[in-house]
């Protein structure tokens, strides 16, 4: 355990940017877990007497058109946005890795059918596909999770398939087969753990996309609905006040969104450097 901590410290010392990303992640997770208990105001309580106030000591990020405290709403929204992103990415990673590994391992008709399927998915601009799926599945938070999971699926399938097919004929897999391991055991014990690091790097980058996707969908009125505090909705609500100079309603949730995406992207880059130092760009 201590050795692992020492290794982690050694790696992070060489990656100050990754350290920064980790710090941001801790901040975001802190907001998501403790946020509702910490914020000074009720995020959905309206108070028209104090509507549209610019940032001040009492309302750090100002108030919106209904007098709700923007700071409280931004902090509380972290839970929903991150929960959707994590759920979607976990779902597509789980399904995509199993499916992709099976395609790469068994090849044959499964591989052909699966590859065609991912080709079709990739033929749609992903955001457009997500829009249509949320409309088809019903306008709810769970639809956003499913839609986000589906549009990310091809990346995991392709990655898992590629990583599996370079390993399936290697000596240690053959040894396992000779030793009497069945297909399921080979996949579970020998292949999946080996392709996992690549998948985790992909997951980190995808978390950023998933947050963007969720916020984009709610920005255009799909998925999460008002008055639930959510970054995309808050930006959409603030958009109409931008032209009259009331920037704070849209700017702070927008900044939170950017921070989250930035954090996941940096984390992804950092993880990639650790997992595969050669691919550094």
């Amino acid at each position, binding site marked *: 355990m201590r050795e692992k901590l020492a290794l982690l410290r050694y790696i992070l010392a060489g990656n100050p940017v990754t350290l920064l990303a980790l710090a941001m992640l801790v901040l975001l997770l802190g907001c998501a877990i403790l946020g509702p208990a910490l914020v000074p105001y009720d995020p959905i309580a309206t108070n028209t007497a104090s509507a549209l106030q610019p940032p001040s000591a009492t309302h750090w990020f100002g108030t919106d058109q209904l007098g709700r405290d923007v700071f409280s709403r931004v902090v509380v929204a972290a839970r929903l946005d991150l929960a959707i992103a994590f759920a979607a990415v976990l779902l597509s990673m789980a399904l995509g890795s199993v499916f992709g590994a099976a395609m790469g391992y068994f090849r044959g008709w499964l591989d052909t059918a699966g590859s065609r399927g991912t*080709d*079709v998915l990739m033929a*749609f*601009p*992903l955001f457009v596909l997500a829009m249509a799926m949320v409309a088809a599945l019903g306008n709810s938070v769970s639809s956003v999770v499913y839609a986000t999971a589906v549009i990310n699926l091809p990346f995991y399938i392709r990655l898992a398939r590629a990583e599996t097919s370079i390993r399936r004929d290697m000596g240690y897999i053959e040894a396992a087969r000779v030793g009497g391991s069945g297909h399921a055991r080979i996949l579970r014990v020998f292949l999946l753990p080996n392709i996992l690091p690549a998948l985790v790097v992909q997951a980190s980058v995808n978390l950023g996309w998933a947050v963007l996707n969720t916020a984009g969908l709610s920005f255009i009125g799909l998925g999460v609905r008002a008055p639930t505090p959510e970054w995309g909705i808050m*930006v959409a609500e603030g958009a109409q006040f931008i032209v*009259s100079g009331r920037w704070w309603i849209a700017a702070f949730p927008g900044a939170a969104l*950017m921070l989250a995406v930035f954090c996941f992207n*940096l984390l992804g880059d950092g993880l990639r450097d650790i997992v595969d130092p050669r691919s550094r760009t």
Partner: protein
Amino acid sequence: MAFLLRRLAGVVPTLFGVVVAAFILTRLLPGDPAVFFANSVTADAVTIAAVRQKLGLDLPLWQQFLVYAGQLLRGDLGQSVGTGQPVATDLLRLLPASAELTLVAFALAILVAVPLGVAAALRPGSVIDHACRLLSTAGVSLPTFVSGLLLIYIFYYQLGTAPEPIGRIDPFAIPPPGITGFLLIDTLLAGDTAGFAAAARQIVLPAVTMALFALAPLARMTRASMLGVLGSEFIRTARANGLRRRKIIVSYALRNALLPIVTTLGMVFSNMLGANVLVERVFAWPGIGSYALDSLISLDYAPVQGFMLLMATIFVLVNLVIDLLYAVIDPRTGLFHA
């Protein structure tokens, strides 16, 4: 030529899959189309059954699909309830607005990102390299709808240099005769320089918003690819032979670094087609993205389906063009000879 045919044939199954996917998605959509077309929620069962029969909704699913595919082959994408027009007509009318915006943004992104990436690769670790990295990280992280609003705040509200974000032209201006549907070209063809300037002023902010979003992966890939090529031996040889710097960079290094850049271009274009919806929303741009979104929100599904098919078709064609570009850029890929 044989390659070209084979590649074209390869498009067919994907397009078929796209049509199937679009068909399945619309059959999943909530609400009974028959009730919808009967124009009343309170229509009695006999009327609904009649409409159902007329629309062919009582047929088994595979027959419905055949009917649908037949309509598609005739270019019939159905009717939009919102505008009362055939969807194909609507899409053709609105496509130039979106295409103009996307192409201007695309051109802008290439013109900024490629030189920036090359400059960063020439001097790794320099100020310009850090600027490139900062811009590309920020561009990836900043959602288009947020950066668009930010630009509106700065250039419309604070500086007053940009016009109000309400579409392609001033509502009181007379649109130029529609020849190409691209306002920038139509105004020039009509010799209307004031109109051209007005149209250009309207398109700048949305195009920059979209370009910012497209910039990041392009600059990043250009830099990485150029770095790789610049370190190779034939560049060292070219230098040792005393070739001019410009010649080394442009015709030796960039030419060889182009392949991954072009791959990224295809990916970026696809992402831009999706981002279009958001940017058009922010700037009230009257393109196909706004049209699809308005239809989606008013539960008018034929336009959404048509929009998805159009997007997927454009995307498949773009990928085809990119594959052909590979062969032009690097004849060694052997696509034309094999």
